[in-house]
C-alpha cells in the first residue's frame, strides 16, 4: 500500500533521515519506534508532504507522491494526525470535525463519517458545541483522530498519540486505536511508549539517529534483548 524507499530528508543543513526504507501493506498496523530525535516525526512529515524528501521515493497505491504538497497527499487517502494533536483550538468540536471533511470527496459522506466518529468517540458528540481548546488532552487526541477519520482515509499516520496524556488515558487511547484498526483502517504509528504500541501493531521498525536499525514482527522485536532494555523497560 505504502512504499517508502531510500528517503533522505532534513531541515536546512541538518539531515534527519538517512536512506529510510519502509513498507506498509493494506490492513496492517505498523509502528516506528525509537528514541527522541531519531527522526520519527520527520518521517511522518515526509509521508504527509509537510516536508519534501531530498532523495528517495514515496509510492502510495501506485501513485508516486514524494514531494507533493500535503493537501494533495491527503486527497489520495493518507491522513496525518500530527504530533501535539494540532486541533483548531478556537473552533468548536463540530467545526474541527467539519474541517476534517474539507476534501470534496469527504463532504458527500459527511453525515455517515460523523456518525462513525461519534460512535467511536461518544465524548465528541457530547462536546459538539464546545471550543476544542477547552477539551482535556485525551479528548483533544480523540478529536484529532476523529478529524482525521472524517477525510475517509485509507492510511492513518499517528505521530506520538500518547504524548502528554495521563497513564490511564494512554491505556484508553491505545484501546481506541485498536478499535479504529478493527474498522479496517491501515495504521502507521510513531510512538515512544514502545511497550504499549507493540501490543497493538503487527510489525515495527526501529529508527535510530535517522536510520532504520531493525524491523520485524511486533512480538519478535519486543523479545529482542536490547530493545527490551533500551525502550520497553523490562
Amino acid at each position, binding site marked *: 500500500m505504502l512504499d517508502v524507499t531510500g528517503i533522505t530528508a532534513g531541515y536546512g543543513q541538518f539531515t534527519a533521515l538517512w536512506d529510510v526504507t519502509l513498507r506498509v501493506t493494506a490492513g496492517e498496523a505498523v509502528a516506528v519506534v525509537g528514541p527522541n530525535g531519531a527522526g520519527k516525526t520527520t518521517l511522518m512529515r515526509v509521508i504527509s*508532504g*509537510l516536508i519534501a524528501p531530498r532523495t528517495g521515493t514515496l509510492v502510495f497505491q501506485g501513485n508516486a507522491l514524494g514531494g507533493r*504538497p500535503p*493537501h494533495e497527499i*491527503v486527497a489520495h487517502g493518507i*491522513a496525518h494526525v*500530527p504530533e501535539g494533536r494540532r486541533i483548531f483550538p478556537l*473552533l468548536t468540536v463540530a*467545526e474541527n470535525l467539519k474541517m476534517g471533511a*474539507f476534501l470534496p470527496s469527504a463532504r458527500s459522506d459527511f453525515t455517515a463519517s460523523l456518525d462513525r466518529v461519534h460512535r467511536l468517540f461518544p465524548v465528541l458528540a457530547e462536546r459538539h458545541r464546545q471550543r476544542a481548546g477547552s477539551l482535556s488532552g485525551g479528548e483533544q487526541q480523540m478529536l484529532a483522530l476523529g478529524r482525521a477519520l472524517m477525510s475517509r482515509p485509507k492510511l492513518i499516520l499517528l505521530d506520538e498519540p500518547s504524548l502528554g496524556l495521563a497513564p490511564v488515558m494512554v491505556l484508553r487511547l491505545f484501546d481506541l486505536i485498536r478499535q479504529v484498526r478493527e474498522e479496517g483502517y491501515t495504521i502507521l504509528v510513531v510512538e515512544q511508549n514502545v511497550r504499549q504500541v507493540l501490543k497493538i501493531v503487527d510489525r515495527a521498525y526501529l529508527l535510530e539517529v535517522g536510520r532504520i536499525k531493525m524491523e520485524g514482527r511486533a512480538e519478535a522485536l519486543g523479545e529482542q534483548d536490547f530493545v527490551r532494555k533500551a525502550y520497553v523497560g523490562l
Partner: protein
Amino acid sequence: MIDPIFLVEAAVNGILLGGVLALLALGLNLIFGVLDIVWIAYVDLVMLCMYAAYFVVQVYGWPVWVGGVAAVVLGLFLGVAVHVLIISPILSSPPINQLLATGGLLFFLQSFATFLWTTDHRTVRLSLPVIEIGGMFLSFARLIAFAISILAMLGLYLLLKHTYIGTAIRAVAQDRDAMALMGANPRRVYLVTSAVGGAMAGVAGALLIIQYSVHPYFGAAFGPLTFMICVLGGLGNMVGAFVASFVMSEIISIGGVTWSTEMGYVVAFALFIVMMFIRPGGILVRRD
C-alpha cells in the same frame, strides 16, 4: 448647554457612521487575522472603488446599484491583484518588508489617482431625502449605508461560520499546516481571504461615495481611523473591531456636536493612546 436632542441625534449619527467604519475594520482585520499582514493601503483600495462608483453613476449615468456592483467587483479584483502581485511573493519575508510593500502601494495609488483624476473632490449627486424622526434630522444616505453595512457584515459572519471555505479561513489563521493536512491548499485559502477582504473594501467604497466626496487622499482621512479601530479592538479580533468601531464613531460624533468636529477626533485619538497603555491587547482581549 446643548439641546439634548442634538446629542441624541449625534449618538444616532455615531451609530450610522460606526456601521461603515466597522465594515472597513472587519475587512482589514480579516486579512490581518489570516495572513498576519496589515494592508496599509486598504482604504486606498476603497478610494479606487469609490471612483469606480463615481464614474459609473455620475459620469456614465448608470443606475446607482450598478455603481455599487461595479465598486464591489473592482474591490474583489483589487483584493486578488494585491495578494497575487504584492503579498504572495513576500509572504515569508520579515514583517517590516511586508509593511513597507503595502505602504509603497499606498503612495503609488495616491499618486496614480492624482495623475489620472487630479485632486478634485468628486461627488455622486443623489437626491436622497433627509428624514425627520422626533425632531432629529437623519440623512437617508447614511441610513442606507448603515443598513447595507450591517447586511454585509452579517453575510461575512455567515460565510465564516457556516461554509467550508469560511471555516477553513478561520482554521488557517490558527494553524496553517494542520489545515493543509485537512486537504485545503493554504495558498487558495489566502487568495479567497484577500478576495473577500477586497470585496468588503468595494462595499465600503460604494457606501462611502453616497456620503462623502472622493479624492486621491481619501485614504488619509479614513485609513488611520480604520487602523486605530483594529488595534483598539485587538488586531485580528473581529468582535473587538466591531465594538471598537462604534466606540470610536460615538466619540467622534458626540464630541463633534459638543465641541467641534476636530475636537471629536482629538478626543478619539487621545482615548486610543490611553487605551494602548491600559489594554494594549485590545478592548476585548482574545482568550485562547
